[in-house]
């Protein structure tokens, strides 16, 4: 080509080349934008996932990221009502069980199973529900899954037996009366998985095929990437409002906030204070404060020195300036000096004021505890995840306070999902982790899961191996106590002992605000980190 050989010709060709590349780029970008917004008829909501999506097997799961997705795909037998903005615990409403009857002796629960179908077309019946419970508690059943069973033992330990006398009736028989059962069954991890899926997929395979009966079904799951759900046209509760829901991983809080501002995403379900500051007063952005019961803490490894020393742990509870953390997050959290979060049924003033900020006292107590300072603590810290947008900064303050009392901290910063998976087998070689936990109003569920000696790994999430026989005895009495006032007092007594043993460094309760883009409708600030997918829609 002669043209290309002249200098001018080459320049012209280069220019044309650049123009073509830019043109193609624009078109591709345009297509991308088009795809994001969908055609005019398509309604899509994009929700930010703050960390890696774990495998979607509800029974084996912990962590809000995965449970939030499970909540859209699956139904438990009963749900919490997310349609009302209350301060008390949400009401319990039917889900896959359309009604239930409790026997006069409080031991037998008869659920009438709704006529519905799973996403794979199989029928929801008592048999399918029974398979789920067999997976969790019947060692002789071939549905039994050790990991799922361990994860749910707190609930299944209450149950003597289950049966399905006919296709529409499912019966749970308890070992002893327990008024909190229904609340426990609303747990997303008690979701009912398709019976056929349980027939077909075992072990890790089930997570690859999340088949439930919920308003949305799985369309696409790129491993570690974006999760795409589509409307379940056969949903029992009427036609879901959206065509698609996309859970897009955006690990960087600033990027997430900017994407919400520019309309790339529609919801940040658990926002950090800097995101709120960035978007406060922006037109169309709504800030909700669901204020679910939750607690942020450092859970100590009680099997490793020096955190096996209760005096030392108590001392550390005096060392942290929680008010400074509150100032850091613009007051988005309330300091906590004990194990009872606001929103829990046994909450009362005083129970969260067992410790205080008193570094001099902390120093003296450490000296008395026999632990020689300076000493190094290895702690895991999440750098992503729901409610963790500011975790790194919060931890720097904690580190500073601990340094003042002679403790060097060696932090291991991890992705939220990576940290959960690292700690779920129980701590090994670390002194603990900085984490938060969201819970319902139920006292049993919160205290026993977190602090019962029977809930240590591999059976439960008491990952720091705390055990106190007196506390466990109080739990046993509380669980069987039919009188609500007495029951609560028993749990209060347990909470007092737990606070005194200081298995955790109690830190704060986050308001866990939710940021909604201008298009989102149907999300109410009920006291939960979850929301109602059946009412979720777009303007």
């Amino acid at each position, binding site marked *: 080509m002669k043209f290309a050989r002249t200098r001018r010709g080459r320049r012209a060709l280069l220019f044309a080349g650049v123009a073509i590349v830019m043109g193609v780029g624009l078109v591709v970008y345009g297509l991308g934008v088009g795809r994001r917004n969908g055609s005019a008829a398509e309604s899509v909501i994009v929700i930010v996932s703050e960390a890696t999506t774990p495998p979607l097997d509800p029974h084996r799961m912990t962590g809000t990221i995965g449970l939030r997705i499970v909540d859209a795909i699956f139904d438990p037998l009963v749900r919490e009502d997310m349609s009302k903005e209350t301060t008390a615990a949400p009401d319990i409403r039917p889900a896959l069980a359309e009604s239930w009857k409790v026997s006069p002796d409080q031991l037998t629960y008869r659920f009438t199973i709704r006529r519905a179908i799973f996403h794979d077309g199989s029928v929801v019946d008592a048999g399918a529900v029974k398979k789920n419970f067999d997976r969790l508690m019947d060692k002789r059943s071939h549905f039994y899954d050790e990991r799922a069973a361990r994860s749910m033992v707190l609930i299944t330990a209450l149950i003597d037996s289950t049966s399905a006398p006919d296709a529409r009736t499912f019966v749970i028989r308890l070992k002893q009366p327990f008024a909190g059962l229904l609340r426990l069954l609303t747990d997303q991890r008690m979701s009912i998985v398709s019976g056929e899926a349980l027939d077909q997929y075992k072990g890790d395979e089930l997570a690859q095929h999340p088949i439930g009966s919920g308003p949305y079904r799985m369309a696409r799951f790129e491993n570690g990437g974006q999760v795409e759900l589509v409307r379940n046209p056969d949903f029992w509760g009427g036609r879901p409002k959206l065509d698609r829901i996309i859970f897009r991983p955006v690990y*960087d*809080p*600033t990027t997430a*906030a*900017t994407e919400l501002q520019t309309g790339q995403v529609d919801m940040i379900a658990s926002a950090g204070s*800097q995101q709120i*500051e*960035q978007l406060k007063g922006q037109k169309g952005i709504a800030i909700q404060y669901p204020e679910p019961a939750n607690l942020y803490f450092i859970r100590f490894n009680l099997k490793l020195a020096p955190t096996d020393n209760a005096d030392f742990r108590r001392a550390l509870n005096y060392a942290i300036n929680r008010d*400074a*953390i509150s*100032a*850091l997050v613009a007051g988005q959290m309330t300091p906590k000096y004990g194990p009872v979060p606001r929103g829990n049924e046994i909450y009362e003033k005083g129970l969260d004021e067992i410790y205080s900020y008193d570094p001099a006292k902390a120093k003296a107590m450490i000296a008395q505890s026999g632990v020689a300072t300076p000493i190094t603590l290895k702690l895991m810290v999440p*750098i992503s995840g729901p409610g963790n*947008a*500011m975790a*790194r*900064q919060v931890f*720097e*303050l904690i*580190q*500073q306070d601990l340094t003042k009392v002679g403790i060097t901290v060696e*932090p291991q*910063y991890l992705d939220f999902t990576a940290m959960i998976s690292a700690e779920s087998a129980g701590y090994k070689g670390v002194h603990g982790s900085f984490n938060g936990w969201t819970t319902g109003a139920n006292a049993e569920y919160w205290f026993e899961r977190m602090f019962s000696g029977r809930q240590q790994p591999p059976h439960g999430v008491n990952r720091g191996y705390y055990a106190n026989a007196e506390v466990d005895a109080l739990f046993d009495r509380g669980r069987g106590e039919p009188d609500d006032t007495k029951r609560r007092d028993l749990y209060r007594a347990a909470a007092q002992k737990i606070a005194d043993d200081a298995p955790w460094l109690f830190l704060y309760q986050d308001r866990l605000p939710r940021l909604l883009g201008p298009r989102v409708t149907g999300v109410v600030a009920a006291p939960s980190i979850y929301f109602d997918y059946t009412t979720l829609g777009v303007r």
Partner: protein
Amino acid sequence: MTLKRSNTGLIAGLALLGLIVIAAVFADVLAPHDPLLADPTRRDLGLFTAGHWLGTDELGRDILSRLLFGARLALLVAVLPTVIALILGGVIGLAVGYAGGVWDSATMRLFDVMFAFPGILLALGIGAALGAGLGSMVVAMVVVTIPAFGRVVRGGVLAAKQELYVEAARSLGYNHWRVAARHILPNILGPIVVYATLQTGRNVILAASLSFLGLGPQPPTPDWGQMLSTGRTALAVAPHVATVPGLAIVVLAIAFNLLGDGARDLLDPRLRREQP
């Protein structure tokens, strides 16, 4: 010697670097606050706030103080890996260049393999394998930059080997090490010094990148790359928290580059000959 453009660059580079070195050396005296002391009640203060002239970061720490103390680390992680890589790469390059043959080919192919990886990726891999921290960051940077030093030195050696003075030294019966170290090395030092200076500038950016990605010194150590990274979370609310350390990184990198360019102009014999 008249002040030419090249010398202007050199002097500017020296001046900038001198300022940063002074800041680093006298950080204790110059810093108005403790760089580690967080006070969230004074967070995200803007530029030119009385007492905090460069504002405070998201934890309420004084940015100026952190910047001054961070200069120590910034200089350290720019210079130290260069020196180590220069020594190791230089010895390797000198040895294989002088020896030639199979050793030379094998080493160069190994370097080719390392060149094939993007430097930052290789450094990230090494850093991730060794765990985050200052030490592993320096190791990663050294490993990534050794091949380039090896090549530069080897190239010089290959050219010098043909020169008469080398042949003369050999004829006098000097052993190989003496010829290599006493006769070849001093004659090829110019390009090596220039390359090392420019590499130091690149190391500023590499170190900041690794530290930005969390592989560098861990918080609360005042480190420019890390300040940039954490400051980013407040970009919309308090843009200066990230911008100020970002500018510092740019200035330091420019200082080393000016210095390197100036040194090249000064040391390159061809350029020198052109001077009247």
